[in-house]
């Protein structure tokens, strides 16, 4: 067990950091907010803590200040985009991610330009990271059980109905957007302080694909979806090592096929399995039936 842990520590770390970004995007999607902005804030968080810690700040302080400080621009962006729905919001936040990447490529003094930042002090331990992930998972679990969970559900299913039930739709959407951005920042910050390099390439379309893969493979139905998804996505390249040069192609194909043919991801598969075990005489449910 410990041997396995030692030899796979880097993978475990990236899976954990990725799962926080997964929580960020999953939270938004579950409330019906098509926001990919978390990925842009991932980069902002990473560059910010890398510079602060490089200037001699203590790690927890740097992370806390970064997350707190990005909430303000996140709120600004949320207010600008508050009237947008569905594809318009997806497009605008996608554009935001691309523009963050372009800024990162050009702002040499902070981001190291196209070369990126190297020798960022590695100050986050696996234990610390695990605690943060547990906190995020617990937060999501509590959030989805309580009043907020029901509000989010109602926002996703039918905004008009939600507002007729007294939910302040605009306000809740802004709230979700900002929390999602904060989680994105946190994920990027932890990631940068764990792997000691950060380049602009990491934060663009590739990361959007990765996080969507986390969401799709994990499933959006439950709090542990992003966690499961992040571990699958992190180990996938190892499993696909035989495919070598065609790894990207296969990963893209997996995203496409899962979202079309098995949309509930691992969460759906586990639920179907659980029903099967509980009631073995019934014929197995398809994923679609399990979802209903």
């Amino acid at each position: 067990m410990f041997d396995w842990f030692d030899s796979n520590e880097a993978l475990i770390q990236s899976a954990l950091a990725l799962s926080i970004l997964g929580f960020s995007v999953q939270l938004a999607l579950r409330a019906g907010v098509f926001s990919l902005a978390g990925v842009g804030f991932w980069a902002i968080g990473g560059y910010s803590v890398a510079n602060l810690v490089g200037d001699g700040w203590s790690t927890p302080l740097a992370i806390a200040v970064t997350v707190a400080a990005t909430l303000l621009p996140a709120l600004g962006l949320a207010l600008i985009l508050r009237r947008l729905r569905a594809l318009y919001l997806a497009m605008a936040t996608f554009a935001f991610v691309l523009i963050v990447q372009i800024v990162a490529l050009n702002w040499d003094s902070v981001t190291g330009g196209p070369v990126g930042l190297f020798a960022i002090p590695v100050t986050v331990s696996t234990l610390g990271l695990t605690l943060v992930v547990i906190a995020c998972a617990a937060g999501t679990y509590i959030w989805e059980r309580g009043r907020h969970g029901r509000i989010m559900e109602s926002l996703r299913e039918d905004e008009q109905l939600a507002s007729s039930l007294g939910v302040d739709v605009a306000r809740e959407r802004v709230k979700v957007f900002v929390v999602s951005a904060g989680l994105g920042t946190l994920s990027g910050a932890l990631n940068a302080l764990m792997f000691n390099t950060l380049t602009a390439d990491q934060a663009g379309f590739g990361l959007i694909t990765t996080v969507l893969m986390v969401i799709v493979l994990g499933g959006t139905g439950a709090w542990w979806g992003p966690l499961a998804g992040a571990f699958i996505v992190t180990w996938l390249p190892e499993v696909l090592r035989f495919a070598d040069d065609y790894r990207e192609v296969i990963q893209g194909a997996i995203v496409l096929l899962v979202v079309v043919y098995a949309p509930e991801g691992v969460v759906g598969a586990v639920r179907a399995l659980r029903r099967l075990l509980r009631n073995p005489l019934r014929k197995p449910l398809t994923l679609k039936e399990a979802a209903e």
Partner: protein
Amino acid sequence: MSQHLLNAIVLGSIYTLFALGLTLSWGVLNVLNLAHGAIFVAGGLTAYVITKDSALSLWVVLPAALIVSGLLAVALEVVAYRPLRKRVGDVHAAELPMLIASVGAAFMLTGIGTRITGNQPVGIPDGVFHVSSHDIAGLRITNLEILIIVVALALSIGLAVFVRRSRHGRALRALAQDPYTCGLLGISPERMAIATMFVSGALAGVAGVLLTMQQSAIEAHSWEPLLLKGFAVIVLGAVGSVWGAIIAAYLLAVAEIGTVVYISGSLRDGVAFALILVLLLFRPQGLFTRTAWQRS
């Protein structure tokens, strides 16, 4: 000054061809096709692959790229979008899964593109199209630039007239309004969806070949900044509006060249994003729309 304007017109022509497909698939099918950029690159790479060993004329290369890109878009419709629409039922509820599927497709196509190019910029040999420079009224213009402008205007205006005037164009607009009633009236939404995706991909493929020749190189990742421009054109010109997209593409190109010439080259890609934000703040329905915006 007028030389800059000419450059802007050439750039705007490429943007027009690229953005038309994007706005068409969104306007008619409610698909934000993030694989559109990768399909655009596929056009350029098709040209690269077929001209690598054999000398072909541009009049063979251009249709070949058009067909390959168009078929890729159709494949995406058949493999992903149609099953999703069928399973989810509601058009708007299918938007997110379709978007994610298109991201997967983009990643896949970019991966294939990287294999084909060996992760290097590749070009189309000079023999395909001899570029020569002309002086017209004191302006320097190459025959390639003339070709780009003519092709873009011909295809885009042709499409605009087709959508507005022809029987199929009317069916297309009906589909955008209400797929269910379309079915009742004997228009096959499935066939129209395939036709729409083909046209969308084909336009991107043509743009891909033309841009590859204009910049004399293309990479598997070349589409990322272009997608941002496509978004700006859509927001500026209103979703689904062909005329809006044409005008918006040229406006964006003028704004961009203006920024590069008078302010700074590094702000070039920022212009598109700034336009998106300002428009969304003050006129989210786009500049050229007459109807109320409902979906955003």
